[in-house]
C-alpha cells in the first residue's frame, strides 16, 4: 500500500511520453496510473515504428520494466472522453498528464487529394502495423509507380515498405494482411518528392542511408538537385546541424549510381504538388518546380512557373501529423497541440489547475522516441515544483477510477492482461518465423487479455 499523502497522478496515453512521465513520477514517489484507449500499450512504438526496425522496439522492454513498479497501474481499453471525462480524472487524481500523441494526419489542401488512390502515410503505416482503427482500409498496389509526398522519416518508412520484397519483410512483425497485399504489388518506381531542397529534408542520415541499401531497388536522383545555393551551403555548414550535413554527404554517394535492379527509388527536390489528376482515380501528380528564397533556416519554396508531371497510381502524403482536441482541455487547433508553459497546461493566460501535457501533443509531431523523454522530464519537473506548495494529497486515485469504470461496465486491461495479449501474439508469430503476429481488432485483443479469467463485469444498479 502507498503511504498516506502520496501524490496520485493519471497519465493519459501509453506511448513513449506517457511512459517516460510515469518513470519520472515513480522516481519522485508518486502513484501513477496510465490510461490507454487501446488494450495494448506503447503508442506509436507499436503502431508507427516500421516493422523492419526491430532494434528500436526494444524500448518496449524499458517500458515494461517501468510498468513493473509497485506504484504503477495500467488501464488499457479506457479512453479519455469515451469512458471517463477529464473533470472526473481531475477529481480522482492530484494531477493529470495528457500524453495522447498527435496521430491525426494533415491534408495537402490541393485538388484531387480525395481521389481513390490517394492516401495519407498515416493510414498506410497504421494499416501495415495493425492498428485496429485501420484494419479495414484497402490499398491498391496494382500500378507501377507510386508518389510519396514529403521528405521525412515517415516518408522513407513508406518508401522502404513499398520497395522491399516480401522476402525482406516476411520475418518482421508486419501484419499478415499487409504482407499478403504487398505480395501482389506491381509497384516498381517509387518517387520520394519534397517541396524544398536536399539541405532542408527532415529525414535522418540513418534512414536515408537505408534507402541506398535496398536489395531490389536502386536510388536515382538528378545531379542538378545537389547543386546548392550559398544559403543552403551556410545551413549545411552550421555546426549544430550535424544531421542535414551528414544526409547531404549520403545523397552525394547516391549520385551517378548505375541502375541494375528491377525497382527504383527516385529522389526529387524542389517540387510542390499542385493537383492530383485522373479519371475516377489518381493517374498523375502535377507539380510546380520551385526555387528557394529567404535567409538561412527560413527559406521558402517559390514556384518558378515550370510544371512537372509524374505518373502514379498511388499517392501517399506524408506532410505531418496533428493532435486531436479532448473535451474540457484547452487546445490550439492551428498547431494541433495543447498550449502549455514547461508542460503546465495553459487556459489563456492562467494555468489549468492540475493539468499537464507531454510528448507530441505538447510539442507537435516531431522528434524521435527519446526526445519525448527530455520532454516528459520537463513536465514532471514543473509538476513537482507545483506540488511543493500544496498540502499532502487527499485524492482517492485509482479506487475511484475503478469504481467509475465498473459502474459503466468498462473492463480495463491491466498490465498482466496485456502480457497475455503479448504472449499470444509472440506465440502466433513464432509459428510463422516472425517476432509476433499482432491482433488487429480490439475484440480479439480483449479475448486474449481476458482468456481464462471471468466474464466482463456487468454494470451494477448503484
Amino acid at each position, binding site marked *: 500500500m502507498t503511504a498516506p499523502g502520496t501524490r496520485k497522478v493519471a497519465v493519459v496515453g501509453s506511448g*513513449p511520453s506517457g511512459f517516460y512521465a510515469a518513470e519520472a513520477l515513480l522516481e519522485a514517489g508518486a502513484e501513477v496510473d496510465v490510461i490507454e484507449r487501446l488494450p495494448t500499450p506503447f503508442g506509436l512504438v507499436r503502431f508507427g515504428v516500421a516493422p523492419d526496425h526491430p*532494434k*528500436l522496439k*526494444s*524500448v518496449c522492454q*524499458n517500458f515494461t520494466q517501468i510498468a513493473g513498479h509497485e506504484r504503477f497501474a495500467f488501464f488499457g481499453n479506457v479512453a479519455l472522453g469515451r469512458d471517463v471525462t477529464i473533470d472526473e480524472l481531475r477529481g480522482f487524481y492530484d494531477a493529470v498528464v495528457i500524453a495522447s500523441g498527435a496521430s491525426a494526419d494533415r491534408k495537402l489542401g490541393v485538388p484531387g487529394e480525395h481521389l481513390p488512390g490517394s492516401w495519407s502515410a498515416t493510414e498506410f503505416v497504421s494499416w501495415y502495423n495493425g492498428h485496429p482503427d485501420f484494419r479495414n482500409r484497402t490499398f491498391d498496389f496494382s500500378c507501377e509507380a507510386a508518389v510519396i509526398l514529403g521528405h521525412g522519416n515517415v516518408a522513407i518508412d513508406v518508401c522502404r515498405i513499398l520497395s522491399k520484397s516480401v522476402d525482406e519483410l516476411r520475418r518482421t512483425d508486419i501484419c499478415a494482411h499487409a504482407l499478403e497485399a504487398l505480395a501482389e504489388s506491381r509497384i516498381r518506381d517509387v518517387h520520394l518528392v519534397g517541396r524544398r531542397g536536399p539541405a532542408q529534408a527532415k529525414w*535522418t*542520415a*540513418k534512414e536515408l*542511408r537505408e534507402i541506398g541499401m535496398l536489395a531490389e531497388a536502386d536510388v536515382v536522383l538528378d545531379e542538378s538537385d545537389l547543386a546548392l545555393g550559398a544559403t543552403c551551403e551556410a545551413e549545411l555548414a552550421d*555546426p*549544430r546541424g*550535424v*544531421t542535414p550535413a*551528414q544526409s547531404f*554527404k549520403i545523397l552525394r554517394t547516391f549520385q551517378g549510381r548505375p541502375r541494375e535492379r528491377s525497382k527504383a527509388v527516385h529522389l526529387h527536390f524542389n517540387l510542390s504538388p499542385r493537383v492530383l489528376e485522373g479519371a475516377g482515380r489518381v493517374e498523375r501528380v502535377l507539380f510546380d518546380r520551385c526555387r528557394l528564397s529567404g535567409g538561412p533556416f527560413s527559406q521558402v519554396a517559390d514556384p518558378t512557373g515550370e510544371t512537372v508531371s509524374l505518373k502514379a497510381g498511388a499517392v501517399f502524403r506524408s506532410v505531418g501529423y496533428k493532435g486531436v482536441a479532448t473535451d474540457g482541455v484547452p487546445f490550439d487547433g492551428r498547431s494541433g497541440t495543447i498550449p502549455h508553459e514547461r508542460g503546465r497546461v495553459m487556459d489563456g493566460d492562467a494555468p489549468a489547475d492540475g493539468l499537464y501535457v507531454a510528448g507530441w501533443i505538447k510539442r507537435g509531431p516531431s*522528434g*524521435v*522516441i*527519446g*526526445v519525448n*523523454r*527530455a520532454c516528459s*522530464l520537463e513536465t514532471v519537473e514543473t509538476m513537482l515544483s507545483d506540488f511543493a506548495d500544496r498540502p499532502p494529497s487527499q485524492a482517492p486515485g485509482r479506487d475511484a477510477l475503478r469504481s467509475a469504470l465498473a459502474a459503466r461496465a468498462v473492463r480495463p486491461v491491466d498490465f498482466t492482461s496485456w502480457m497475455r495479449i503479448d504472449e499470444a501474439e509472440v506465440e502466433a508469430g513464432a509459428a510463422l518465423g516472425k517476432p509476433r503476429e499482432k491482433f488487429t481488432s480490439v475484440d480479439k485483443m480483449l479475448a486474449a487479455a481476458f482468456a481464462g479469467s471471468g466474464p466482463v463485469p456487468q454494470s451494477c444498479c448503484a
Partner: protein
Amino acid sequence: MTHVVTENCQACRFTDCVTVCPVACFHGDDERLYIDPEVCVDCSACISACPVGAIKEEFDLSDDEERWIEINASRAPDLPVIRSKQSPLPTAEARRSELGLN
C-alpha cells in the same frame, strides 16, 4: 552498428545527450561519457541533442575517430549509467566557445 561519443565530449559534459536516450546506454567518468554499444538502439536522438556535435554514428566516423568505437565499447560497461542531466563540468562553457559553438 552503433553510436559513439568522440573527442569533443572532453571536459564538457553538458549531458544534454542523456535526457533524450530512450534506453539508458550512457555511462560516464569524471571527464566524459561513453555509449554502451550492446544497449544502444541506434535511434540517433542524442546526435542532435549534443551541443558540441560529439556523438556520431559509427558509419560516419573519420579514420582518426575510428578508435572511439573501441574506447566506448570497453569503457562504458564498467562505469555507472548516467540517465539524468548533471551539472556541466566547470570547463563546459569554455569548451563550447573553444569549439566556436556559442
